[in-house]
């Protein structure tokens, strides 16, 4: 090798290292989305009449038709819809675009559980100064709670996932079991169903789904997480209420009356279609999903409230759902904020979301709109399923917080409590304690101050 290439290699190396160092220094310089003083009506009117193009990242299919309604009302504002599909890669893309400092959208769909992590990095604009508080009264309280953090509002609720029970009325009837109203009745029913046919289970409580299990926590009145910005997180999975829920399922799993198969896998789909599971604790997006998965069992399913801890109660939890948020890097904050409000509160747009894309509504107007709530579904024997879930949604009270790192919370569920569930339900108490310990350990390693109230 001659002299030239060696020197060239060294130069290239230096350039590479230098550019890396530069890249390292140029960490996201986006300004905080902290409180700004209220924007006046005149400013809003002016902005909405100034030509602008905003980019909107989402995973809702065919959302263009609802966006068209906005563009019709505000012809000066163009919305560039980018559909990136749902899942973990969506957030990876969003985080990458934000930290790259360019290419991030103005408006992004974000699940409620992921709002705190973007709130933590100060990438969300507080929508309160842009008139968001004015639309508050149109939304169900349970959905609004999920976007509000103190006085700040970090998104406008788009859809929600109140929990209900979808069950096979034919199987229950054959086993002489009435639809369970309380968890005590549910336990007796589980015993009967499994005794009648050992290959059948009243339900499947997946050992792979921390998010669904937290829904059961919420129904029982536990609120294990809270984060209100800043450095402190509250983590209390191991509360008395949490233990009550865990003990209940531990008993049923140890008896072998309930299965713990991982959900959203091939055999889980077949289990729903073949009658292996006689019910599914499902969020409001579940009923339509189930129709596609278990088409052969059409007519045999019914929807109901979750069984209650105390007879006569109407408690439930929320699993899933998302909001539309404005990123603090946007150059068109007013147009973006108005867009999120219009899209999720306009009468026609929200009704279309509910009836075309089957997003479970968050506005009182759509929840009670007969076009939505009176829909009869042959899959559920002509039952007005939407009305059932609308009823559930209206009765959800109380707060249910998320941590800025829910992915880690769900992941550690699988190796702690979920593992104990999969191992036959013994040691679930210890599993719950391990889960708590794992989440606390992670939070501390990430520099948070942890409280456990």
């Amino acid at each position: 090798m001659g002299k030239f290439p060696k020197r060239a290699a060294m130069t290239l190396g230096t350039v590479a290292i230098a550019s890396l160092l530069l890249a390292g220094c140029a960490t996201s310089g986006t300004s905080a989305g902290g409180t700004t003083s209220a924007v006046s009506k005149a400013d809003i009117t002016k902005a909405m009449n100034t030509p602008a193009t905003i980019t909107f990242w989402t995973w809702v299919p065919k959302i263009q038709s609802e966006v068209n309604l906005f563009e019709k009302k505000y012809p000066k504002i163009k919305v560039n819809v980018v559909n990136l599909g749902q899942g973990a890669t969506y957030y990876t893309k969003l985080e990458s675009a934000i930290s790259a400092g360019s290419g991030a959208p103005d408006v992004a769909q974000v699940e409620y559980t992921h709002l705190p992590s973007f709130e933590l990095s100060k990438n969300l604009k507080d929508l309160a100064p842009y008139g968001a508080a004015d639309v508050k009264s149109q939304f169900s309280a349970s959905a609004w709670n999920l976007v509000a953090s103190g006085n700040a509002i970090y998104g406008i609720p788009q859809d929600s996932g109140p929990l209900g029970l979808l069950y096979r009325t034919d199987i229950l009837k054959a086993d002489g079991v009435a639809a369970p109203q309380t968890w005590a009745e549910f336990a007796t029913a589980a015993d009967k169903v499994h005794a009648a046919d050992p290959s059948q289970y009243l339900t499947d409580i997946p050992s792979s789904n921390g998010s669904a299990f937290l829904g059961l926590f919420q129904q029982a009145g536990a609120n294990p997480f809270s984060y209100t910005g800043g450095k402190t997180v509250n983590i209390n999975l191991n509360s008395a209420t949490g233990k009550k829920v865990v003990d209940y399922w531990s008993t049923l799993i140890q008896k072998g009356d309930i299965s713990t198969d991982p959900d959203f896998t091939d055999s889980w789909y077949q289990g729903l279609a073949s009658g292996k599971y006689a019910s599914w604790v499902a969020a409001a997006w579940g009923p339509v999903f189930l129709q596609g998965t278990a088409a052969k069992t059409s007519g045999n399913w019914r929807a109901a409230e979750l069984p209650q801890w105390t007879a006569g109660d109407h408690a439930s939890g929320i699993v899933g759902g998302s909001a539309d948020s404005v990123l603090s890097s946007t150059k068109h904050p007013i147009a973006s904020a108005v867009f999120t409000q219009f899209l999720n509160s306009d009468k026609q747009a929200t009704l279309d979301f509910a009836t075309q894309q089957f997003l479970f509504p968050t506005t009182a107007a759509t929840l009670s709109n007969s076009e939505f709530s009176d829909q009869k579904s042959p899959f559920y024997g002509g039952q007005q399923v939407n009305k059932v879930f609308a009823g559930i949604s209206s009765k959800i009270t109380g707060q249910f917080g998320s941590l800025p790192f829910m992915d880690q919370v769900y992941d550690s569920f699988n190796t702690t409590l979920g593992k104990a569930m999969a191992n036959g339900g013994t040691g679930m108490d210890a599993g719950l304690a391990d889960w708590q310990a794992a989440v606390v350990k992670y939070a501390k390693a990430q520099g948070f101050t942890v409280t456990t109230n």
Partner: protein
Amino acid sequence: MSETIAATTAARNAKAPRRRRNETKRKQTIAAYAFVIPFLLLFLLMLVVPLVYSGYLSLFRSQLIGGLTFVGLGNFIQAATDPLFLAGVLRMAFFLVVQVPIMLALSLLFALLLDSGRLRFPRLIRLGIFIPYAVPGVVAALMWGYLYGDFGPFSQLAHFLTIPAPNFLGAGTALYSIMNIVTWGWVGYNMIVIYSALRSIPTELYDAAEMDGAGAIRVAWSIKIPAVRPAIILTAIFSVIGTFQLFNEPKLLQSVAPNVIDGAYTPNLYAYTLAFTDHEVNYAAAVSFILGIVIMIVSYVVQLSTQRRERAK
């Protein structure tokens, strides 16, 4: 010293022809580099730069609260004592000791059978054994996920016979089930490597052996296997690397057996989980580097031990 002077004098004497030769040589050198540049550029961009970058990343620690801090070799020290990482490495070492010999023995056996010329439809059989390698790893893992699953043929058969269904993805069995998938997928590939080495053995050797009265098995043992030794070592080293980098199969089976195959099941999966679930990109980079070093050491040990055996002969 005197040699240098002599050389200089000689160079001075042969100045004119030397210059012309130098010129053609330089032209050739430039041409050679021109040919290599496309590779070199890609090599730099796709390998060297990311490597340097992740090396740089591994020297920091980023926290959700507190941001980026320089920690020097802190991440490496942490990884060297991280029980999750070490358990993954040990699991893969066990995998290596059990699965690789089985796979290579099967590959060698099939290659020898094909080479013996005693099989009917040898091309069909060769293709049949090779085809699993052509199936993308992702598809293969999904397929096996179904076969191992609750509604797969084995469970259905057990159900039909009213015996308890085997749990292929339990805490004690999952690793062996993954070994099975990897073996199924890679036997054909290794077989082809060994088989092509077998085809290049001069046939005179076989004639000589036959003259000496050696049977087919003796020929295989004393001529064929020693002759393809380098090919076997090559497949062994590839398998060492492949084993420690195991990712696709456990990652895909994770959705079916999430409580057994955790985020730290294999070292590579651990690096992935750290980077994408735990937001610890810097620590993930350090773990990847240590994994690379482990692979280099084990590969070197494999090569060294076979060489020593060769020399001992």
